[in-house]
């Protein structure tokens, strides 16, 4: 059979239900050749209309494959189109000049070297990768190279353009999954009853199986489509699929085929979900069942009626139901010679198909053989119960009907309609669906029962064939796996990979279960099926990612930092200046002159009310009742397990008014912590907490010249050391901006003032400081320089020099903890820690060789025991040597102790414990000036 035949042989004249626009014809590329198509053709239909039969090579054995189902799920129809891999050729519409190529072929579709795998079949049995390519281990890179060549699938180019993906939310009262006759009827009935409805249909048009039906069905289709269009309140999404149903009817819908967005993910909270997916036709398992030219009856009816394609010239039809009969009639109608109709209801059977790249002959159950180029099978239907399963239902297998039906555990807000729910005439199914729609919208109404018709149970024939065409798993493989002991359906699935391919079980599960049941002497019901999991259809990672919602927070001075060449540091959601080119120079400038640093991310909480001191006493380990107006105090917070939670300074600004600062990463945590206490255990306390972290731009002005600089721009505050001592707070006007809060504290160890400016004026004040301090040597400094200086002063950073196990006394804050307070967070654990004694301690450390800067988190060891670690480590420009903070075991805490530090490269150095945490100016002379 040649691959390129005159188009007219395979393209029919206009069909009543066709989706083609014959006024628009064009050409496209396939496997190097040019082929004609009409607007409305799918890639596979257009190729079939040119007589092309082989569309791909299968996953493992590289067997030639063609159209089987002519639907989205067709396993033999995955192609590469315009650079996009894994395109479903039987669903994707052709575009003019589209460049389509086969996948998984080498060197070509015609002659695929890797089909030699078939000869190696016995070495490539299921699970072969558990048994081969294991030893010797040193050959793994070589194995990988070879196996990669044989791996299936399309190609992704690194230069592919980025797509625009999107997300949106929806709140339909009723979401109908499936736009066939039942889905449409349910949607209309629900909307008539006043519900907002979202109707989701996988294919390009509503209608389901009506679209390839006879004139009667086409008439019903037209009426239903008109009803949907004419009814307000129905949002119709075509070329879209429900990919999963989650708790409380949270439903994910993937919307494809949009002009401006690659794929859109719709997250819908539906009041009621109506599941109306119809039934999926099941392939028959026998020798040669995957040969191009073997098709399901629905494939034939789609090709003939939707795409005006003659699928072959001489056909054999194996039919067990009305749809198979109708397919035979369709073929005859369009001039295909139907050489034999094999009626499975009367015992007819197909044993084997002969022909390599295409069907040539069919051997029947009665011993005869028929020459033909097309074998049509109609052996039964699979109920796609996935959404029901996801809603907690356990579908039940009905042997008489040879399919699964909804169980009794369906949630009241999930309803089934159409073929999934039962059988009947078209009118009966529509009436049932309308009642379902009514119930979905109103919660009322009686839903009529549906009969369940008998159907012969046809799964595997007399010969072994392919069960999973996506994964190349044959019935022989399933029987062998069961014999090896993988006899439960979940084990079978994982060992053989059956149902794990592109169709995800829609075409394979029931056949696999039936064959396993027979091989293990159980019923299908006893064997059970595997778990259905979302997504029901493939979804791009782009759609799942959608728009990247990652809040970013900026200080008002950010434009200045950028213009000044700051190297950014990502600190949680904040972008901060790490340094401006030379952090060491920044340190020297602060210690010698004056520097300014943007500390806006510092957490700030406005506390108001008469009971604020009680809150402070509860949250902090120290005492707060006697903090006078104008004074500032440093505090540490512990959690109820005694572990250090946060630290900061809090100032008493005015009557019943305090300003608390926290670490920047702890701002949200401390606020929630305070709210927890105030809302639950202490509802009677009159305290209002308002976060003002971003309301103030915060600048730390530090260095010997800081007072001088600040006084040049400040009015309303006496900055002299007598009027404004260390650990005090004042409010005044800076650079003409009223309402600025200033406190004198000293993280860096220099004379410094931390000013908090209403954020809208932050940049203005920053610039004013720069402008007014040139002769004083003002320069900005960043987070890195601040880290170095605070380390020189031995100031611990919560979360860096403490961790989730550091109880208060271990953090060297003994003098702060007031165990004689009534109750504060952490009190019991801290007092027990104190009683026990013998706890690891945070100490200052200096490597004996001052030129070595140990990596942070380097372990402190004794022999092969870990007795501590380095928590902070830097080279100090001020001291000209390396300095550290770290934890050591209780017996090593004394000043002068020499400890051994193991560096990441496993070499060891020695370091000495210092008398106090501060390496520089331990008395704090510079601070208090």
């Amino acid at each position: 059979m040649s691959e390129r035949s005159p188009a007219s042989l395979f393209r029919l004249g206009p069909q009543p239900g066709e989706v083609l626009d014959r006024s628009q014809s064009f050409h496209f590329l396939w496997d190097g050749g040019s082929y004609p198509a009409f607007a409305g053709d799918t890639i596979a239909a257009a190729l079939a209309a040119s007589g092309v039969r082989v569309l791909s090579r299968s996953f493992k054995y590289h067997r030639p494959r063609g159209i089987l189902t002519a639907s989205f799920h067709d396993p033999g129809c995955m192609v590469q189109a315009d650079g996009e891999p894994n395109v479903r050729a039987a669903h994707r519409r052709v575009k003019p000049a589209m460049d389509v190529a086969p996948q998984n072929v080498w060197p070509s579709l015609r002659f695929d070297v890797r089909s030699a795998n078939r000869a190696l079949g016995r070495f490539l049995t299921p699970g072969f990768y558990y048994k081969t390519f294991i030893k010797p281990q040193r050959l793994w890179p070589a194995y990988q190279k070879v196996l990669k060549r044989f791996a299936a699938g399309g190609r992704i180019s690194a230069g592919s353009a980025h797509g625009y993906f999107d997300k949106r939310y929806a709140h339909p009262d009723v979401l109908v999954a499936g736009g066939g006759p039942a889905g449409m009827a349910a949607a209309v009935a629900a909307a008539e009853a006043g519900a907002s409805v979202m109707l989701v249909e996988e294919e390009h048009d509503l209608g389901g199986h009506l679209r390839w039906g006879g004139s009667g069905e086409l008439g019903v289709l037209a009426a239903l489509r008109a009803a949907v269009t004419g009814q307000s309140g129905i949002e119709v999404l075509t070329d879209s699929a429900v990919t999963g149903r989650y708790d409380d009817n949270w439903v994910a819908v993937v919307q494809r085929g949009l002009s401006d967005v690659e794929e859109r993910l719709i997250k819908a909270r539906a009041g009621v979900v109506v599941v109306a997916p119809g039934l999926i036709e099941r392939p028959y398992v026998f020798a040669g069942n995957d040969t191009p030219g073997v098709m399901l009856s629905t494939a034939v009816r789609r090709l003939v009626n939707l795409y005006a394609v003659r699928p072959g010239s001489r056909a054999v039809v194996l039919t067990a139901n009305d749809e198979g009969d109708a397919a035979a009639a369709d073929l005859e109608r369009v001039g295909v010679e139907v050489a034999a109709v094999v009626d499975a209801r009367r015992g007819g059977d197909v044993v084997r198909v002969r022909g390599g790249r295409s069907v040539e002959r069919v051997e029947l159950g009665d011993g005869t053989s028929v020459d033909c180029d097309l074998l049509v099978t109609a052996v039964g239907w699979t109920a796609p119960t996935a959404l029901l399963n996801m809603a907690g239902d356990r579908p039940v297998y009905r042997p008489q009907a040879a399919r699964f039906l909804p169980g009794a555990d369906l949630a009241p807000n999930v309803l089934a309609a159409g073929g999934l729910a039962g059988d009947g005439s078209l009118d009966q199914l529509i009436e049932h669906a309308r009642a379902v729609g009514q119930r979905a919208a109103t919660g009322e109404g009686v839903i009529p029962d549906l009969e369940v018709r008998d159907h012969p149970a046809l799964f595997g024939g007399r010969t072994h064939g392919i069960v999973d065409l996506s994964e190349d798993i044959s019935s022989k493989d399933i029987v062998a796996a069961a014999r090896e002991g993988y006899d439960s359906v979940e084990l079978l699935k994982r060992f053989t990979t059956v149902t794990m391919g592109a169709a995800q079980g829609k075409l394979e599960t029931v056949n696999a279960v039936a064959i396993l049941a027979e091989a293990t002497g159980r019923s299908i019901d006893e064997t059970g099926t595997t778990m259905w999991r979302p997504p029901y259809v493939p979804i791009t990672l782009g759609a799942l990612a959608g728009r990247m919602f990652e809040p970013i927070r900026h200080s008002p001075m950010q434009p200045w930092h950028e213009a000044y060449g700051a190297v950014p540091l990502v600190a949680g959601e904040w972008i901060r200046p790490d340094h401006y080119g030379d952090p060491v120079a920044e340190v020297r400038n602060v210690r010698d002159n004056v520097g300014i640093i943007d500390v806006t991310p510092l957490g700030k909480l406005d506390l108001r009310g008469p009971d604020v001191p009680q809150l402070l006493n509860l949250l902090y380990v120290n005492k707060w009742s006697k903090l006078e107006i104008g004074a500032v105090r440093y505090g540490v917070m512990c959690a109820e397990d005694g572990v250090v939670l946060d630290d900061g300074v809090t100032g008493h600004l005015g009557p019943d008014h305090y300003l608390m600062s926290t670490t920047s990463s702890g701002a949200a945590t401390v606020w929630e912590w305070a709210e927890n206490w105030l809302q639950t255990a202490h509802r009677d306390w009159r305290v209002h907490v308002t976060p003002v972290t971003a309301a103030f731009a915060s600048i730390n002005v530090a260095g010997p010249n800081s007072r001088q600089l600040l006084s040049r721009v400040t009015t309303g505050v006496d900055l002299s050391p007598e009027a404004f001592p260390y650990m005090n707070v004042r409010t005044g006007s800076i650079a003409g901006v009223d309402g600025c809060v200033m406190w004198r504290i000293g993280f860096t160890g220099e004379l410094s003032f931390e000013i908090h400016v209403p954020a809208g004026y932050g940049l203005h004040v920053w610039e004013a400081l720069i402008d007014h301090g040139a002769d004083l040597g003002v320069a900005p400094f960043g987070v890195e320089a601040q880290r170095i200086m605070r380390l020189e002063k031995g100031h611990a950073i919560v979360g860096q020099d403490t961790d989730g196990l550091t109880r208060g006394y271990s953090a060297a804050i003994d003098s702060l903890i007031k165990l004689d307070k009534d109750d504060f967070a952490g009190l019991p654990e801290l007092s027990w820690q104190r009683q026990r004694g013998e706890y690891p301690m945070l100490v200052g450390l200096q490597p004996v060789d001052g030129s070595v800067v140990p990596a942070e988190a380097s372990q402190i060891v004794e022999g092969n025991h870990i007795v501590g670690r380095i928590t902070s480590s830097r080279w100090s420009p001020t001291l000209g040597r390396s300095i550290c903070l770290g934890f050591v075991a209780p017996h090593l805490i004394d000043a002068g102790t020499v400890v051994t530090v193991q560096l990441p490269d496993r070499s060891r150095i020695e370091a000495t414990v210092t008398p106090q945490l501060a390496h520089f100016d331990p008395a704090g002379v510079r601070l208090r000036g």
Partner: protein
Amino acid sequence: MAEPVPRSPAARSPITPAAPVVVRDGWEVSDRRSSAALTLADCTPVRKFVVRGNGVLGVPFGRAERHGDTLVAGSGPGEWTVFGGEAAPSPEGEFISVVDVTHGRALIRLTGVLAARLLAKVCPIDFSERVTPHGAAFRSSVAALATDVVRDDRDGSPSYLLHCERSAGQYLYDSLLDAGAELGIEPTGGDGR
């Protein structure tokens, strides 16, 4: 002590104003006027206060009421956000606090018939007329950021005020512009309300 420093410096919003930029009422603002059907305006300069107490302002939780130029929203249990007005609110009651958050919150106004469609892309709340009519006020997650929303229709057009913690203002603004791109959104200058 100090040399005289220029008084009344202009305050800046966290959101970079769309050109042309002018100074109005002490704030750097955008003077752009767009007649697009869907517009986004930075209204951060509007005065804002958080009032806390028990039942102090009559507006119930989840609702907002306008009195002339002042909008009062019941933004939380025992909490109200007051927008606009000449002076700080001074309600009577037992334990009240009033905190000026003019600088602490970025405020954005989204106006147009398609506004709810845009919001449905970035916020999981149901924006239908039934659930979120004119006068509704709530707090939820918009583009993964905790944001307060007040529906405050203008001249018959659906309009929403969104405010968030100030430092994320530019992020919220950019997220709304991105979501509205396919709907033809355009930035416009705020008009102080």
